[in-house]
């Protein structure tokens, strides 16, 4: 390879790596936990599960309950049998029967208890596993999050390939020369290459499958064109088990039993696990039952099978044998098997988990090498400050994920059963603690300390998780072991190991390591530029603290007005009491009021009197959280309530005030610390 190409590839690897690094780290770290999404849900709920055989479930009862509540006439219904919990998921699509009731036109996604047929909405059954799974592809960012994750995955493949090219010659020497006692920069560089190569197949698989899952839209666009835009036809070919049929007309006869069909079909093959039931055109003359599932991955890596029944004629219209391979279905199942690691029980998932954490290490060490090698005396100070800053922010975001996730586990365990809408409360808790941690560690400006503190707090919190589970659900490790609640046990043991490992690493990182990094030898004066930065225009000047106090009160007012919009619903839309109201305001309502208006009023008041550093940092953190929330709220309101013009107008002003507040506290903070 020519010298030029080597340097070009090196630079391409560096730049693409740095750009995607934080996002990629979040994807892998959250993804590592998302591997255990279902186990986390069961752990969080805490009640023992019965591992009911999927063929023993009374589907007829569930269907008739759903029919009473949501009118199934003319709908397509997807049941996800969810393997190892006492809930199945029902996705009710809108009816295609033009004569059906109004109720049948709304789409529902529900969790259904297999014993009681009790249903929960998506927000009610939301759990931390779901949150981390969604964080894994940034679904918390509306609309663009998924595509952002997809392009990160694509550039991850780019970085893997360029990285392998660049490090090709050093692969073997890096293994043999690896020595943990050398200088930090060498250590990181060597570890980056060695672990990068060890994880290469795994990471490549993840780059490819991840990019496909997130960018399905782009990848299948050419196929869509070949089908001349007939997406339904394409989908029927790619997912024959989910095939949809034209609605012909209703059939008023009694609908034959689903239980009988499931039992008869599942018996066809030994070791067949039923995974999905698809009901097509419910109550229609061409109504279909589809049972899809697969045989154990021990027998066939890909062994999907299905039976399709034309319900009213009683004829089986299609059978796919699990032992017969079908390329079109096999490729897709292989992609998902490789991505979810659901082929070798807990063992394979643990290996995936460790490899995901190794990938996190590769990402972090890459960033650290980048930061270290750009802190030299001959580089201009503003550039060095910028690099160091990027390093501090990146480390703050990445390393604080461990304590924040551990704390969230404790939070959901302790508050389990307390909140009805779990989605909002998990969002609020996770995102605000994360922002607090990021602001704190960024201002610490010391990667060594950030690392130590995160390991210590993360380790201690991890060890508290099995204890909290024991106290609040009586699921002590020995109990779950004796009761064979392997899902709950797995999560506790996982945290036990994470906690012990974190504390062990914590004890191994000695202060002298700090002296080996370039920031010890060529320290950076972070106050460098600051004389120029603040030039105060004396004319028309509102004193900074007055300005900040005003903005706080403005925000509080904004939120009060926001609640007035809640009243609008009562005037024009809803009944006077909410559905499910008990005659008493729930405690969470008070917590929300204190967090929103209360905190703003308090900070507004205190700003008039207090100007200590801790206070400035606290208000700064809170202002950032409030700004993030307001911006998020503005975006969601613009998407979902685009006709509520006056509210949108208010939200724009409040979001602007929020951003001004962050900016002004930042300036205040800087001028006070000079």
């Amino acid at each position, binding site marked *: 390879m020519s*010298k*030029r*190409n080597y*340097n*070009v*590839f*090196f*630079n*391409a690897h*560096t730049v693409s790596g740095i750009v995607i690094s934080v996002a990629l780290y979040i994807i892998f770290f959250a993804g590592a936990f998302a591997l255990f999404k279902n186990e986390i849900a069961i752990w969080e709920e805490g009640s023992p599960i019965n591992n009911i055989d999927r063929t023993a479930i009374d589907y007829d009862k569930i269907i008739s309950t759903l029919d009473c509540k949501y009118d199934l006439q003319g709908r397509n219904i997807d049941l996800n049998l969810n393997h190892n919990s006492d809930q199945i998921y029902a996705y009710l699509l809108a009816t295609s029967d033009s004569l059906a009731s109004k109720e049948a036109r709304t789409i529902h996604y529900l969790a259904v208890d297999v014993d009681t047929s009790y249903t929960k909405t998506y927000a009610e059954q939301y759990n931390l596993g779901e949150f981390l799974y969604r964080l894994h592809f940034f679904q918390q960012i509306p609309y663009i999050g998924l595509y952002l994750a997809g392009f990160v995955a*694509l*550039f991850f*493949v*780019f970085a893997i*390939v*360029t990285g392998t090219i660049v490090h090709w010659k050093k692969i073997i020497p890096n293994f043999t020369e690896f020595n943990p006692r050398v200088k930090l*920069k060498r250590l990181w*560089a060597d570890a980056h290459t060695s672990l990068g190569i060890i994880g290469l197949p795994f990471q490549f698989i993840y*780059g*490819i*499958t991840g*990019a*496909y899952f997130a*960018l*399905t839209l*782009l*990848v*299948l*666009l*050419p*196929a869509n*064109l*070949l*089908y*001349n835009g*007939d997406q339904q036809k394409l989908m029927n*070919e*790619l997912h024959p088990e989910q095939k949809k049929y034209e609605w012909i007309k209703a059939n008023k006869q009694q609908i034959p039993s689903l239980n009988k069909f499931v039992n008869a079909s599942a018996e066809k093959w030994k070791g067949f696990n039923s995974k999905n039931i698809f009901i097509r055109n419910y109550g229609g003359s061409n109504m279909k039952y589809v049972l899809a599932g697969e045989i154990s991955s021990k027998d066939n890596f890909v062994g999907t099978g299905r039976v399709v029944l034309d319900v009213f004629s009683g004829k089986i219209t299609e059978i796919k044998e699990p032992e017969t391979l079908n*390329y*079109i279905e096999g*490729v*897709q199942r292989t*992609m998902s098997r490789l991505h979810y690691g659901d082929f070798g029980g807990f063992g394979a998932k643990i290996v995936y988990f460790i490899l995901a954490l190794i990938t996190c290490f590769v990402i972090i060490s890459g960033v650290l*090498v980048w930061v270290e*090698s*750009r802190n030299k005396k001959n580089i201009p100070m503003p550039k060095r400050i910028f690099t160091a800053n990027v390093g501090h922010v990146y480390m703050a975001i990445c390393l604080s994920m461990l304590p924040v996730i551990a704390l969230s586990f404790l939070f959901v365990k302790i508050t389990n059963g307390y909140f009805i809408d779990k989605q909002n409360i998990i969002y609020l808790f996770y995102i605000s603690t994360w922002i607090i941690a990021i602001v704190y560690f960024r201002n610490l400006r010391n990667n060594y300390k950030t690392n130590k503190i995160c390991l210590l707090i993360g380790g201690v919190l991890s060890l508290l998780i099995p204890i909290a589970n024991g106290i609040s659900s009586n699921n002590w490790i020995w109990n779950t072991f004796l009761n064979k609640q392997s899902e709950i046990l797995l999560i506790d043991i996982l945290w036990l190991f994470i906690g012990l490992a974190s504390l062990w690493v914590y004890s191994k990182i000695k202060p002298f390591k700090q002296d080996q990094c370039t920031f010890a030898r060529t320290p950076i004066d972070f106050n460098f530029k600051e004389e120029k930065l603040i030039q105060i225009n004396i004319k028309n000047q509102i004193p900074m603290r007055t300005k900040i106090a005003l903005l706080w009160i403005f925000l509080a007012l904004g939120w009060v007005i926001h609640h007035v919009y809640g009243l609008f619903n009562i005037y024009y839309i809803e009944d006077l009491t909410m559905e499910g109201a008990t005659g008493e305001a729930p405690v969470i309502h008070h917590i929300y009021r204190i967090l929103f208006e209360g905190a703003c009023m308090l900070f507004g008041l205190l700003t008039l009197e207090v100007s200590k550093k801790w206070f400035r940092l606290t208000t700064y953190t809170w202002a950032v959280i409030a700004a993030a929330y307001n911006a998020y709220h503005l975006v969601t309101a613009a998407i979902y309530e685009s006709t509520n013009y006056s509210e949108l107008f208010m939200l724009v002003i409040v979001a602007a005030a929020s951003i001004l507040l962050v900016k002004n506290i930042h300036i205040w903070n800087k001028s006070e610390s000079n």
Partner: protein
Amino acid sequence: MPANPKYLSTSPWQKGSKISAGIIGGYLITSLFHMVLALVLPNGKAIIITSIFSAIILWSTLLIIPFLFKNGWKAWLLYLAIIILLYTLYFFANQQNSFL
């Protein structure tokens, strides 16, 4: 340790041309390539389903290739030529579209 800057292009236009050639040009080539293959080869559906991984591999390779060029516009020129060629093939192959 950082790459030697004397080999790197500094103009933002050059950088932009290489990146855009990779992302946009690369995507168009990948798509047209798979469309032509799906139309021409006997088992078109198998090609479509293969594309769910081969498209990502091909696209990421095409992201890298423009960086081998000193002049990014030449990379665009090459990509454009391939796109036009593939589109012509697609146009004729699409006369007998077996998917419809």
